[in-house]
Every structure is written in C-alpha cells, then in structure tokens.
C-alpha cells in the first residue's frame, strides 16, 4: 500500500517547489508560534500548500520590489546568481526571510488532505475534531479555517486517530506523533509515513535542525529500519541526511519526547 499519487505529488512539490524553471527549491520550515500572527493568510502562518507558497513568494517579490521574480513569475535574478544552486539558495533565502514555509502539522495535513480526498473522497480537515461546540468561537474559526486549526495535538487526539502498537502493521499514511519534546519539553512534532518497504519505513516531515542554521531547514525525508519489531520505535535505526543516532536531530527529538506514538487516522 502507498500514499495516493496526488499525495506523493504534494510531497514531491514540497521538495521541489513549483517555481518556473528552477527545480530543487525545497520548502523551508516556518512555525507561526514565534510571531503569533492572528487572522493572517494561511500561507503566512506555515499552513500553505506548495502552490500557495510559490504564488505568495511571487506576490511578495513584486509588491516589495525584491526583484526575485518578474510579473510573469519567472525568476529574474539570473545575473546575480548564474549557477543553479545559487538560484535555489537565493529563492530559499527569500522564502525564509519572508516567513514563507510550512510547519510539521501543516505539511502533514496538506499531504493527507490529498490522500483522503483521492482515496476516500473525504475532506480530512473538515472531518477532524478540533474543538467542541461549547467553545463556540473557536469552533466557528475551526469551520472557517480548518487547516490552520489542525496542530499536532489534534492528530494526537483519540477522536481523530488511534494508536498503532505493532511496528509490523505500520502503513503509509500513519503518523509518528512526538509530544512535549525539546530541552524544555515545550513543543510537539509529527512525521508522516510515506512508504513501507520490507523493514524500511520511509517518512517525510517539515523540520528545523539546529545544526543547519537559519536557511538550511525545511521538508526532509528519512528512514526508520525496523531491526527488532518486538522493541520500541527508539530501538530501531533512524537515518536522515546520512545521520544516525543522536546526530540525527529527528531521532533526538523523538528520544527527548514525553510521548512518542505511532497513530493512524480513523476515517
């Protein structure tokens, strides 16, 4: 079993944002928690789709005269950045400087939206339980802006997902939910299982590693090799960007977490 073709294409688009003629611009990570913007565009609070991020980048470039793109959306800073990798770096720097990126739950939601729409004709964001009607204002907001309201905590809610205990039964579309992690135990993270081949689990996520500085973060893929299914997830071999063990900061986050679960969406 695999994720649907459109879901896989969405992951591919996050890894290669659809800028005209510039492949390889992977989407940066952006989390709105630091800025705390309210009532802002979905794409400016880390919940945008690849297409929305590209469109907003073009608008910002023209509006604030950054001269990165011309009015047809074509990259126009060739002269300053002749090499392709320099062009990619230039665009990524522009995206990061303008708070354009996606957070972990935004990435997972936008990919799974496509998967559930294609395979089950379900609008996942609308199906999720975010809050009860008792909290009326928040409930209304969750109806108007569903994707923006879906956080890791929503994925960890038993009303939306159930725990997968057996590592052998993991399937694409399952989620690795990491709650209360980091040195201060104050943030959550989520990984999306993209593919399962034998004992290798391939995941994708939006993340920021401290070792990669201001501009190096973004959508990334990694694998967990199940060496002993009887043991827990942390006992398996995690690899991402050729880093293993605690050098792999995703593994480190999972290790530091108060809660580490594999969850499956109920719908």
């Amino acid at each position, binding site marked *: 079993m695999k994720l649907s073709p459109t879901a896989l294409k969405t992951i591919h688009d996050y890894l290669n944002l659809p800028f005209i003629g510039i492949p390889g611009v992977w989407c940066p990570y952006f989390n709105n928690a630091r800025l705390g913007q309210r*009532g802002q565009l979905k794409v400016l609070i880390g919940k945008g789709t690849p297409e929305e991020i590209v469109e907003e980048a073009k608008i910002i470039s023209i509006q604030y*005269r950054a001269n990165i793109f011309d009015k047809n959306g074509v990259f126009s800073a060739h002269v300053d950045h002749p090499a392709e990798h320099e062009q990619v770096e230039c665009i990524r720097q522009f995206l990061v400087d303008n708070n354009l990126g996606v957070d972990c739950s935004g990435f997972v939601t936008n990919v799974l939206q496509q998967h559930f729409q294609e395979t089950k004709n379900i609008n996942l964001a609308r199906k999720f339980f975010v809050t009860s009607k008792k909290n009326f204002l928040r409930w209304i907001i969750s109806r108007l802006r569903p994707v923006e309201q879906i956080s890791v905590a929503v994925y960890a809610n038993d009303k939306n997902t159930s725990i997968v205990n057996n590592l052998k039964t993991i399937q694409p579309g399952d989620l690795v939910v990491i709650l209360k992690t980091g040195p201060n135990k104050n943030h959550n993270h989520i990984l999306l299982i993209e593919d399962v081949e034998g004992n290798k689990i391939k995941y994708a996520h939006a993340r920021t590693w401290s070792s990669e500085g201001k501009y190096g973060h973004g959508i990334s893929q990694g694998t967990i090799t199940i060496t002993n299914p009887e043991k827990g997830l942390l006992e398996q071999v995690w690899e991402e960007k050729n880093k293993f063990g605690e050098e792999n900061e995703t593994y480190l986050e999972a290790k530091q977490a108060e809660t580490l679960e594999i969850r499956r969406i109920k719908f």
Partner: protein
Amino acid sequence: MNIALIQQALSYLIFSAIGAFVWAPLLTKILYKYKITRRDEFDFTLKGSERNKKVGTPIMGGLLVIITVTVLTILFNWNRENTYVPIGVMGIAALLGATDDLLNIFGKKRRERKISHVLNLIKVHKKWYMRLWYILILPWEGFRRFAAILGSHPGRGIQVHEKLFFQFLAGAVTAWWIYFKLGIQWHSLWVPFDGQPFVGWWIIPIVIFFVMFTANAVNFADGLDGLAGGSLVITFLGLMIISWTEGRASFTLLNATVVGALIAYTYFNVKPARFQMGDVGSLGLGALLAINAIAINRTMLIPFVGFIFYVEIISVIIQVFCRRLLGRRFFKMAPIHHHFEFRGWSEEKIVMRFWLIHAFFVIVAIWMSLYK
C-alpha cells in the same frame, strides 16, 4: 430644459479648466520645492519594475482641483443654502487627506499598541490617574486595534481609526445640514423607479455612511495614473447633467467647476504622471461626490455615478474579509486594479477599460435619474 443654466455651467467648466491649467505648473514647482514626492519606503502599493518610475513623482496634485473649485465657488457660486456645506465638508476631508499625505512623507513611523498592553498598563501603572485614563480610553483603543486589523499597514500617516473618525465627522456635518437645514422634502429618499419613501431621521446614518464610504472608495481608486482623475471627470459630468435636469442651479455650476478643474488635473495625471492626486484630492473629492449626489436627492445613485470607486472599495472589503476570516486571498492583490496588473494587464489598458465601464454606469445613472 433650462438652456441658460447649462450655458452658464459650461462657462464655469471652461473657466475652471483654464484657471487650473494656468496655475498647475506653479503647483508642480511648489510640490517639487518642498519635496512632497512619492517615496518608496512608505509606499506599500504594487512595486513592479514599471512602478519604480513613480518614485519621486509629486503627490498632493489633488490640491489643483480642491483649491480651484474652492476659490471659484467662493467667488462666483457662494450661497449659504447650497454650496456652503459641500465646500466645507470637502475642505474637512481634504484637510484630513493633506495631513495624511504630509505625515506619510515627513512624519515618524506610528507606534502600534496592542490591547493586552493597555490592559497591562491599567493593572500595573504606578499612578492612579494614569490607570483611570487607560480605563477611559480602552474603548477607543479597542476601536483602534479593530481598525488596524482591517487596514494592512500602519505606516507613518494618519491611522485607519483616525481617518474613520474624521470621515464620520464630515458625514455627520453633512447629515446635520441635510436633515436640519434643507427642509422636510429631504427627509424622503429618492429610490429609482419607486418614488420617494419617507425615511425621517434614518437619512442621518444613510448620509454618514455614503459620505464615509464614497470618500474611501475614491481614495482606493487613486492607485494608477489617470484612473481616479478620469473617472471623477465622468462622475462629476454625470452629476452636472443630473443637477441640470433637476433644475438645481448651484449644484450644476459646482459640478461644472469640478469637471473643469479635473480635466486640467487629469491632463497632467495621465501616464507618465506629472503629479498624483494624493489623499488630499481623493478624500476631498470623494466626500464632495457623495454630498453633491445627496443634495440633489439622488443618494441611491451614488453606487452608479461612483461605480468604479465602489468596485474598488468592495474589492478591498472582499480581500480583507477573505484574508482575515478564511486565510486566503480572493484577488492576487487589492484594490482590484492591482489584481489586473498582476494578471499582466498594462496600466493604460486597466485605466481605459475602467473609464469605459465607469462611463457606461454613469450613463445608466443619468437614465435612472430621469424616472421620478
């Protein structure tokens, strides 16, 4: 038909146009001398490569129309019953716009204060009278914050909440004049094809709404060379014809004077603009548009005589609504003329198409106004 009146109106129009043409170079010189020009650091409108050329263009060119109309009206068309209040309210709105224009150039960046900050001050300020003061101004601060959320960039000039307050004041003066000074027949609202239902004191909020809405609408349309100026020529020409058919001499002459001055202004404002209208012109003329339509009891025609301005402001409202509530853009950028620029339309194409569409709806307004 009163041919003498239209002859007189056309004389005013010609005289006003010649007058404005004569002193336009002087105004340009003054604006350059005092560096009242467009600067890029506070300009948040579309800034594609084509638009870079607009940096350094004088703003407050609207003074050409405001001053010409005011002087000529005071000299040749001044009467307490008819032109006193329209010119006064136009003056208030223009003053507000001028202050905004000047602060945008010479002012300091305005500070944004959140409600939570004020609430904290109420709790922790060491002086009791300051705590009391912050309690008293809390509703105003709430209004300010709400207006800031609706607007996108606080910038340096007058902030949204202050603009709304002064525009409300201008609307209230107009409403007072209409309701208390112009007589009982103005307590009825002319409705196209439906006679004149009596609305009584409801005319007051209706007038305030139209004055505020229209002034802002014209302000939003002032974003491309020639767009606001050319559209206002068509609008006031329409109002002149409607006033003439209604036999309202003072307003026919006032509208004719505005058309004349606007012709001169638009001549200098078409691309590449020698100067731009600025808030001084757009807010002042927007208010005058509303008042002149209300004063000839054609309030309900304002969305038609000001069609393109209403399209512009409604595009902004839709954009803000979608952005704040739904988290997405409805247009690539608002007001709508910027959306078409993003779609690749040239400035000239947008302006001329908007003029034509606007002219069509002004003709519709004239046609509707003939049905009593």
